[in-house]
């Protein structure tokens, strides 16, 4: 974390992946050198004081050679909308890398990555890193429809990819949680890594407890400082009297460290 800093970066490439999903690549040499999978950055979104807060986005990919960092994001509201209007060569302010990322432990070096929707964002960087460490990985990607399955071919470079869609238009019909249960019954893993909507995280957390396999979850909360200073982004810790900060104590938590609601 010693390279955490405030950087003024330039847009190198900005791709539209689907109607509302974009991949933004920024020139950010120091960030590229310092970033670890699961960490995030706070991006300035807007020209005046409205929107006021920066937006947290996971580090999706790092190209050490070119010194670039990519983010994969879905346009949700006014901040991401503004971001989507940035063109090549324009400036984006960025604070990062932030937070505690994924940890890689376990003797079997077999990992299961579980994601849904835009939740794939931090897992691509993780998959690449795990492959470099000789892990064997299986990646589950869920979405409502075929179009919602993101980065499938990117992930295929790093491991086995299994897909599910609610409408069956790609992969297995059903939710990624169903898929997860199926896969789980057959194989064994040293670690589960998950990122996605709350129900997916809750299911992974449950399964992790039931089967005694450690899981790491990437959480989201509204953030102001991103640095652990404001106490704004808390989530219930396992010790009920303790609120943990998603930005500084996370965003990646062991499933056993937090109590998810919902």
């Amino acid at each position, binding site marked *: *974390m010693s390279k955490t800093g405030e950087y003024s970066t330039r847009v190198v490439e900005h791709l539209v992946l689907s109607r509302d999903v974009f991949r933004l690549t920024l020139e950010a040499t120091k960030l590229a050198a310092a970033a670890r999978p699961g960490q995030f950055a706070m991006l300035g979104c807007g020209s005046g*004081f409205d929107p*006021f*807060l920066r937006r947290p986005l996971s580090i999706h990919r790092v190209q050490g050679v070119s010194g670039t960092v990519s983010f994969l994001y879905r346009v949700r509201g006014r901040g991401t909308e503004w971001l989507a209007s940035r063109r090549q060569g324009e400036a984006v302010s960025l604070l990062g890398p932030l937070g505690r990322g994924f940890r890689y432990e376990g003797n079997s070096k077999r990992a299961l990555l579980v994601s849904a929707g835009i939740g794939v964002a931090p897992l691509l960087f993780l998959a690449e890193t795990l492959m470099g460490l000789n892990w064997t990985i299986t990646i589950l990607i869920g979405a409502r429809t075929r179009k919602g399955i993101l980065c499938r071919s990117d992930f295929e470079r790093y491991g086995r990819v299994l897909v599910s869609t609610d409408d069956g238009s790609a992969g297995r019909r059903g939710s990624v949680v169903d898929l997860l249960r199926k896969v789980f019954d057959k194989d064994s893993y040293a670690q589960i890594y998950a990122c996605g909507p709350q129900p997916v995280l809750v299911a992974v957390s449950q399964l992790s407890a039931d089967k005694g396999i450690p899981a790491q979850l990437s959480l989201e909360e509204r953030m102001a400082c991103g*640095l652990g*200073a*404001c106490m*704004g982004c808390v989530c219930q810790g396992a010790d009920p009297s303790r609120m943990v900060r998603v930005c*500084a104590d996370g965003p990646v938590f062991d499933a056993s460290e937090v109590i998810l609601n919902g």
Partner: protein
Amino acid sequence: MADLPVQIAGIGMKNPVLVASGTFGYGAEYRPVFDVSRLGALVTKGLTLKPCAGNPAPRLWETPAGLLNAIGLQNPGVDVFISDILPVMRSYGVPVIANIAGFTGEEFVALAERLDGSGVDGLELNISCPNVKAGGMALGADPCLAASVVAAVVRATSLPVIVKLTPNVTDIAGLAREVVAAGAAALSLINTLLGLAIDVDAGKPALGNVTGGLSGPAIRPVAVRAVWQVAQSVDVPIIGMGGICTGRDALEFILAGASAVAVGSALFHDPLAAVKVIKELERYCERKEIGDWRSLIGAAWKRGNSLAGEVR
């Protein structure tokens, strides 16, 4: 670069730019981003007698040019602060002001006693927090109650006592007069405005605590007005805050009568905001060839005295 020294309540600072309580943690959090020893002084997150878990999530909600928060004073308690955190804060070589929040008058006194001799350079009494049910704003909005707490704390400590006021009152200048008469050595203003947002999708209040405190550039005109009114009503120095993002914003407060300023929510927009404010103030004083920057304090009403009468 121009020198910008100032004394607030006997605390000597190398420049008048502080950080606002609760937005800067205990300083260490911002160390990766900039050299926090550049600041005039550090102000801690609000400290309570016992560890405090704070309010339920969500605690933050963005608003136009602003932010609603309802943290509810999450902090490890004054004892852990003194043993574990303060030594680190002192190592930066910058005065440390402890922001304290009692849920009763007695708690304020107990906090002040605990901190006396601990190594902090001053106390900021947060009698203005809108995010707790007891103490806080309820106490700080009643001039009599507020004055009695201030008097008790002043008796209990040898530390300089700075009192932080709430803007959620009909007459902030009257409140300020009472609090100064009770012994406040300086005033901090303003704390957040009481606000509320509805999460329309959920059909209910956006914050776990229902109401929250509004901060950021949105409230700046209210804060500058408060400083303007209070500076003309009392004779103690004022630390102005509320939406300060740039040197120009800081100058608004100084010209209105503040002897120092604090940068708060602006750090969320730009983590370098506080250092930028310092640099911009230095550059302003150089460009304008201002000998002693303190001649700017209250200059907007001191100069044209005809103005001064209009507002009180």
